[in-house]
């Protein structure tokens, strides 16, 4: 059976009936989002493959016991966010105990979509770099909520489902995250015409 056409609910059912190819399709379907939430949360591209694997191993183990009522994507996304935040926390503890600063996120600059463009585009590439650095300085909570909105383009309702909070709380958190950004990007908010 070709699962590419199946909806999430049928995939989960097929997996629960013992067909591993259904799981393979789930991985294929969501690996992009999982990779990106890890990347945007941890800031280090070299972390992505291992953490993504950890996320899907966790999913494999828990998938047998779930019923998909709302969105499989929400559930997967939440696992990805949790695994990454746990890893960041572990690292923070390791850094505090070992004074090892080798994992400084600012050393791992991302690439920008059109930074190869010349002259006037260089200015915007520089600006985007500033935005990236500011994002890295946000609290985990603020960064996650903002990235779910900006990067995954999810609605407040969908974000609320993923983070288990109300739409009102999503609205407040996103606003707070932007206020934090505003402090970090003073030029951006004040000098720009």
């Amino acid at each position, binding site marked *: 059976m070709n699962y590419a056409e199946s909806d999430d609910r049928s995939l989960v059912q097929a997996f629960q009936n013992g067909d591993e190819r259904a799981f*393979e399709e789930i991985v294929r379907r969501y690996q992009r989002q999982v990779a990106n939430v890890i990347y945007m949360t941890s800031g280090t591209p070299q972390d992505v493959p291992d953490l993504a*694997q950890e996320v899907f191993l966790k999913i494999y183990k828990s998938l047998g016991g779930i019923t998909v009522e709302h969105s499989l994507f929400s559930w997967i996304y939440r696992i990805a966010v949790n695994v990454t935040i746990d890893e960041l926390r572990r690292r923070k503890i390791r850094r505090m105990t070992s004074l090892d600063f080798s994992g400084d996120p600012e050393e791992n600059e991302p*690439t920008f979509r059109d930074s190869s463009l010349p002259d006037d585009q260089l200015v915007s590439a520089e600006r985007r770099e500033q935005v990236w650095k500011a994002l890295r300085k946000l609290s985990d909570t603020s960064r996650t909520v903002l990235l779910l909105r900006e990067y995954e383009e999810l609605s407040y309702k969908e974000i609320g489902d993923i983070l288990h909070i109300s739409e009102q709380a999503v609205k407040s958190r996103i606003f707070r995250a932007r206020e934090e950004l505003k402090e970090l990007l003073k030029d*951006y908010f004040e000098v720009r015409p």
Partner: protein
Amino acid sequence: MNHRDIRKLISAMVDGELDDAGTKRVNEHMASCPSCTRYARALRAVSADIRSVIPITLPDTFPLAVLRAVHAEQAESRIWMPVELFARRFVVGLGAAVVLSVALAMTIRPEEPVVAEPYLTGELSDSTATRILLTKETPSKNDLLLAVVSPE
């Protein structure tokens, strides 16, 4: 409504999450507030910049790699299961043996503390301190002090 309240509405508006009444209120405010107008423009620019970061991609072989990892983990737990069982039996056995030997030692020599025995016979030490202590059946505080400060 102050500027901060308006900015909260602007944040929702930029995300397309503000109702008509809210949008109307924001637009009315912005018509006479350059600061909030600038804020709305900056939010849109930041948003565009965040979205311009190149998404990371995993190879097409990733799903198979995950399945391989799943199977490796399952195989590993199959290998360790009997070992774990053995280890558990071993620990239980060891515990029983310890309890048994302690009980046995207590039965055989109920009054003699096992640890002190070599010292009492003078086999293990002939230091002054030990000698002083060994001469007394119940050493006083002064005896203890003397033992501690006495040179070898």
